[in-house]
């Protein structure tokens, strides 16, 4: 058999191994390039999805932010108790009537508190969440605070200055923030904020409870 044919066959066999190797390599690790899409079908349609781009506006947001001074459909702004935590110009002392204080509300509150508040205030509300710990370390760094970090310790929710506050005031702190704490009004809807403050009340109670407040049949382990 002529040499040239043998070489040609060998090279062809080697080349045949290439495509699977390239594919296996592409599978094995993440790749920064946009996936190849030759046949586009109707993959990209002329419609605006949430958080997509719209070149007509200077900020390119397709989802328009609410214009200051307008009221969205279904937005409830007259019920100041529910929206602002204010009744007759005073901080509300109860949860609004749509959300009576019950176990369901507290469980929802616990769930939400553990998502939005524990990073700083900790699971018990004592003020030592993971973010708080890390921020303290960054401030206490030997060569000075890392990248200009400053930190006011997340306040213990069992501090007397907080436990004496009416529930409406705590609600307001969560909605609009207080001093160094940012507001959660844009992240958490009002009903969930009420659930959170209801749970904060329960936490405060739990840390300052007396034996008499524990139901008789549950006192065994105390």
């Amino acid at each position, binding site marked *: *058999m002529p040499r040239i044919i043998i070489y040609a066959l060998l090279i062809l066999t080697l080349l*045949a191994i290439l*495509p*699977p190797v*390239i*594919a296996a390599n*592409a*599978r094995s*690790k*993440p*790749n*920064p*390039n*946009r*996936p*190849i899409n030759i046949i586009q*079908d*109707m*993959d*990209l*349609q002329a*419609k605006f*999805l*949430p*958080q997509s781009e719209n070149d007509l506006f200077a*900020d*390119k*947001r397709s989802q328009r932010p609410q214009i200051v001074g307008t009221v969205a459909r279904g937005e409830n702004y007259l019920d100041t108790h529910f929206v602002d935590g204010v009744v007759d110009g005073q901080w509300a002392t109860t949860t609004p009537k749509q959300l009576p204080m019950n176990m369901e509300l507290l469980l929802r509150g616990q*769930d939400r508190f*553990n*998502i*939005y508040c524990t*990073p700083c205030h900790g699971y018990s509300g004592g003020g030592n969440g*993971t*973010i708080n710990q*890390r*921020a303290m370390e*960054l401030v206490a760094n030997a060569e000075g605070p*890392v*990248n*200009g*970090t*400053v*930190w*006011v310790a997340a306040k213990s929710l069992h501090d007397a200055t907080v436990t004496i506050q009416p529930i409406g005031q705590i609600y307001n702190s969560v909605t609009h923030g207080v001093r*160094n704490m*940012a507001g959660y009004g*844009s*992240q*958490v*809807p009002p009903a969930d904020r009420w659930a959170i403050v209801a749970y904060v009340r329960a936490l405060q109670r739990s840390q300052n409870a007396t034996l008499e407040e524990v139901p008789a049949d549950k006192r065994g382990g105390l």
Partner: protein
Amino acid sequence: MSRFLFPRWTNAILPFILVTGAILPLYAAFVVAYGFSPKTIDAGYQPTQPVPYSHALHVGQLGMDCRYCHNTVERAGFAAVPATQTCMNCHTQIQRESPKLEKIRSSYESGMPVEWVKVHKLPDYSYFNHSAHVNRGVGCVECHGRIDQMEVVYRYSPLAMGWCLDCHRAPTDRLRPVSQITNMAWDQRVELTREERESLVKLFHINPSENCSTCHR
């Protein structure tokens, strides 16, 4: 006039040619199925983001819950990428002069959005809904992989129609209690018995649809 004659050695390679001829179509089919599968082409997409935000740090080390940032995931079809304000809840104070956060700060001052690159993208003719999955006990990790270990997010799943249907046809092993939705390290195949997983199916009356109109509407 001399006629072309196959040299004698060609007889020896005849079986070889037959075998190659039989293998070649199989080979071609394999290359197309393996090389052009969404697992090769679509999965693993990891674009470079404008801000070097790390899930491994914020979720893995600092233990934040997904919903702190992706707060619409339980309420809406779309899992919103957080607004600049959300980052600034902490970063007005923590690492407030970090060069890595330059774009976040300028966005906070100007009100212009940060241009995050979208990692997961279904074609516009298909419809997906997060709340339908998350509230029925399909955890983030089933579709997005171990986000809490990713420095930079990449596309873990192929997001192909076959992939959706694989789960819609056999969801039992992929369900967890709703309280464990965002817990990335938790695996129901280990933590729950078969019976417990089946009872989850009954609890939520899970019957994922295979109707075309569920996802193409």
